[in-house]
């Protein structure tokens, strides 16, 4: 699975992951509670765009980010203009877009591994309840390993249908689920055998 991380050495790349995460959470809180007016929202959008530019996304990356949000902007904005008011449309749509841009900046500049470490730290208090903070992090990695395996199983089931000249349609999910559960049980044994996860 390819991470959405983009290597680089901008300021945002160098700020620790935990700090960025906290920053994003705080911005989300502030933006949605303060509810700046229409003008304020436009300033906010400008700031968010600049932040994204600073990550090294370039003008092209920035435009692309906006382009991906086009439907949200058009439809949400449109609905709000029709049903509420143009000012509300700018305010509310702008708020959502600004937050999405900030989040994209965060995602582009933070390595998966660094976020995993944050996750580990977040889970550290769990130790008091007898949960190993490594376990959630391990589960995350285990899932990443399993996605291509599952895709491979899907292919096996597809091939089996084609080879046998039958089309199961959605019923094909049954053999897929069986293979997936079998795989899970094998992995469970391997985990136990390696003395991990408990």
């Amino acid at each position, binding site marked *: 699975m390819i991470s959405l991380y983009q290597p680089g050495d901008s300021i945002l790349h160098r700020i620790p992951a935990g700090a960025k995460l906290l920053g994003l959470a705080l911005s989300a809180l502030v933006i949605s509670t303060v509810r700046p007016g229409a003008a304020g929202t436009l300033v906010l959008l400008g700031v968010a765009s600049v932040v994204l530019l600073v990550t090294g996304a370039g003008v092209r990356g920035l435009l692309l980010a906006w382009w991906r949000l086009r439907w949200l902007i058009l439809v949400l904005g449109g609905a709000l203009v029709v049903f509420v008011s143009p000012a509300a449309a700018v305010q509310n749509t702008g708020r959502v877009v600004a937050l999405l841009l900030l989040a994209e900046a965060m995602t582009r500049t933070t390595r998966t591994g660094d976020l995993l470490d944050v996750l580990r730290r977040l889970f550290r208090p769990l130790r008091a309840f007898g949960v190993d903070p490594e376990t959630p992090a391990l589960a995350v990695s285990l899932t990443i390993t399993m996605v291509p395996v599952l895709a491979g*199983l899907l292919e*096996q*089931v597809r*091939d*089996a*249908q*084609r*080879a*046998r*000249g*039958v089309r*199961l349609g959605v*019923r*094909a999910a*049954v*053999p897929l689920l*069986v*293979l997936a559960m*079998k795989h899970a049980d094998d992995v469970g044994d391997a985990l136990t055998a390696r003395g991990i996860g408990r």
Partner: protein
Amino acid sequence: MTDAHIAFDDVSCVVDDVPILRSVTARLSARRTAVIGANGSGKSTFARMMNGLRQPTSGSVRVLGLDPAAEGMRVRSRVGFVFTNPEAQILLPTPAEDLALSLGSVPRAMRATRVEQILEQYGLAGRGDQPVSELSGGQRQLLALAAVLCTDPQLVVADEPTTLLDLRNARRIADLLLGLAVPTVIVTHDLDLAARCDEAVLFDDGRLVAIGAPPGVIEMYRRLSA
């Protein structure tokens, strides 16, 4: 040369810029053909092309006179394919259901009786309604084979069908496959099984490097792997 049931002509296959078959030309006309070679040498890819499960990037494949790429359905209704892992091949929860799936062309009223017959014939009598996951490895491979053979294929391709089996089950499946009246292609790492075929094909790094009587080809494989 016209009676070859399988003809590969300068077939190459490239996946993600990596060549996995390189200019393979082969005419198979023996009743029983073994395909041998190292892990990743292209054996399974070669076998899968016989059934249109994989398509060549260039070159032409003819199977029973048909082009699997263009006439996939017709080829597949004539070619039976057995995979290594029976688990991946059994599509429905119980043996009876799975066999009935293969018998789509048999009138519904007769299907149940036919299923019973087949179960009996493959030593699975009484297990028709048991969850497939509770069958033993050998029983599962027998079921997978039964589900393929009961459609009366005109050609059978098997990709390492005995790998997970013990002596008796491996022999049983091997005897079944080698005893078929229709042409049979068997991909295998079991060189004793390969030796029992009429012809052998050796793959190395995507190339067909030898084709001929099994003893010589097996000897060459041993030398290559030394």
